[in-house]
């Protein structure tokens, strides 16, 4: 059994045929993941007790002849900003180095109920703020395909674990591209569902109006299966959507003949690089499948980054106010007064990028600047949203690059925050509009670096997105 190429359906087949038990697979997977981890630093810590308990529950169900669930025995990695009861959840921050959550995120409850086996928690940028995973307080993650390069961020550990084969699927979180960009850099499938499709209960809040939980997988079918398990209304998150939950796997394999695809000209202008060439080749594959490809315009694209970095930092400055040394494990030792205790705890605890975002967010919300920055950005968000509404009157899906370039070298951009922000140029628009988007592998550069193609669809049209991605994956043979 090759652990690094396992799929959900292969595991199910093996369990039902009694080739292996869930406990045997969990033990094997834990051993493999722990042995391979030093190569990438993808996992921050493992939770073998929890994994084996979940695996035993699957074996018990199998022994009774019950259905073991759609994720039966599947080794899963969970980004360390998603709460796991009794299992350390650090958000890759020194501040939360010893934090043990008292409850589980809804997505975690659902994936374990479906038979999933959580092996451990994955590294990421501190509080999910970053595009390279270099902002982790516990060291960067290395790209499994090119160890001198970043895996992308912020969900770099989840992407790397799936690419490396130390998890079959993983949960990440995406606020402005934090699932799609690392998926693209590591050559795996990464999905940002419609805003509200997956409950945010138990996801450490960064920018609440933009935060999403979503899946990573080595193929479209596994990503669709995992999303189907974690999605759906949850009364613990008032922003979780009531929209009916379709059977995502059912749409896979259907023809995409006649599907109307829009290529936003703003995303392709100036994309003369190798990445652009690969995406163009991908578009030819879509044409070969009978898709009707046309150029469209999303005229406010160039305003997305400034809009996003005002809104997300404003929300972050508010959400991160809770880390004040009172409730969350870490407190500065030398503080004569309460206010000094707050300030020193936060000053010592947060890394440079978190501080920068807290400062920027506080500034744009401060008296005299609110209208000029925050309100202005919220209005521009409406314009970006309307761009997509108009585009989807003409087309069924939008296809674009995920990132202007493949994985960059460790250290290459870390000292230039603005350059790092600009690398999110193609992923931020979909986040602001709240539409479902994903990265699907689209070949490799001459240096062997993966490039992802982004597919964006209408609100709650994940099925269309998966159908197109699956057809593309099959036609292009871009399996990771």
């Amino acid at each position, binding site marked *: 059994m090759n652990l690094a190429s396992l799929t959900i359906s292969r595991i199910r087949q093996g369990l039902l045929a009694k080739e292996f038990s869930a406990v045997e697979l969990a033990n094997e997977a834990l051993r493999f993941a722990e042995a391979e981890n030093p190569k990438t630093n993808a996992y921050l810590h493992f939770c073998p007790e929890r994994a084996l308990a979940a695996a035993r529950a699957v074996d018990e169900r199998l022994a009774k002849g019950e259905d073991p669930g759609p994720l039966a025995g599947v080794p899963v990695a969970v980004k360390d900003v998603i709460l796991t009861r009794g299992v350390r959840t650090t958000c890759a921050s020194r501040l939360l180095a*010893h*934090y*043990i959550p*008292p*409850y589980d995120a809804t997505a975690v409850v659902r994936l374990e109920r479906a038979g999933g086996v959580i092996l451990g928690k994955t590294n990421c940028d501190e509080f999910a703020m970053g595009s390279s995973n270099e902002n982790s307080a516990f060291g960067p993650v290395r790209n499994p395909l090119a160890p001198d390069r970043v895996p992308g961020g912020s969900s770099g550990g989840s992407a790397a674990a799936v690419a490396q084969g130390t998890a079959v699927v993983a949960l990440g979180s995406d606020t402005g591209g934090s699932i799609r960009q690392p998926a693209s850099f590591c050559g795996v499938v990464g999905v940002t569902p419609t*805003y*509200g499709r997956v409950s945010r209960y138990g996801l450490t809040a960064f920018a609440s*109006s933009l935060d999403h939980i979503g899946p990573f997988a080595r193929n479209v079918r596994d990503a669709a299966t995992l999303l189907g398990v974690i999605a759906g209304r949850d*009364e613990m998150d008032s922003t979780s*959507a*009531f*929209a009916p939950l379709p059977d995502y796997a059912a749409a896979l394999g259907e023809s995409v003949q006649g599907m109307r695809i829009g290529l936003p000209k703003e995303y392709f202008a100036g994309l003369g690089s190798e990445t652009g060439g690969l995406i163009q080749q991908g578009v030819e594959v879509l044409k070969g499948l009978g898709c009707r490809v046309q150029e469209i315009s999303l005229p*406010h694209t*160039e305003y997305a980054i*400034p809009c996003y*970095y*005002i809104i997300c930092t404003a929300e972050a400055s508010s959400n991160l106010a809770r880390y*004040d*040394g*009172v*409730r*969350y*494990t*870490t*407190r500065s030792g030398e*503080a*004569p*007064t*309460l206010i*000094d*205790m*707050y*300030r*020193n705890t*936060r*000053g010592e605890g*947060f890394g*440079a990028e978190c501080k*920068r975002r807290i*400062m*920027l967010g*506080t*500034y744009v919300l*401060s008296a005299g600047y609110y209208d000029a*920055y925050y*309100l*202005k*950005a*919220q*209005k*521009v968000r*409406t*314009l970006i*949203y309307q761009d997509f509404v108009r585009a989807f009157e003409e087309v069924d899906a939008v296809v674009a690059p995920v990132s202007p370039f493949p994985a960059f070298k460790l250290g290459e951009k870390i000292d230039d*925050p*603005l350059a790092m922000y600009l690398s999110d140029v193609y992923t931020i628009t979909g986040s602001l*509009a*709240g539409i479902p988007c994903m990265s699907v592998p689209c070949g490799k550069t001459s240096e062997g670096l993966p490039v992802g193609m982004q597919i964006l669809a209408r*609100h*709650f049209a994940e099925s269309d997105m998966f159908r197109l991605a699956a057809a593309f994956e099959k036609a292009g043979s871009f399996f990771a």
Partner: protein
Amino acid sequence: MKITENEVRYVAALSNLTLTEAELERMARDLDEILTYVDKLNELDTSGVEPMAQVLFDAEETATLRDDIERPTVSNSEALANAPLSGAGCFKVPKVIER
């Protein structure tokens, strides 16, 4: 300059962040660069455009309300378990009121 070092000190105080002198100097430079960049939004005329706080889905206004039924939540000891300092069922903090 979009932001001065004094303003950075003021915002750091609002943010409850202690910054070292080196951090203050670097922060002023970074924020200045980012604020200059985000000024790009002013190229757009947004008069008459409604601000969007969040992408909303179609549902009745009362759909997210639930019945007012008491139910167990995190217990006192669980809530305090991660506190750096607690006692008598409460979070402990440095003295707030002077005698």
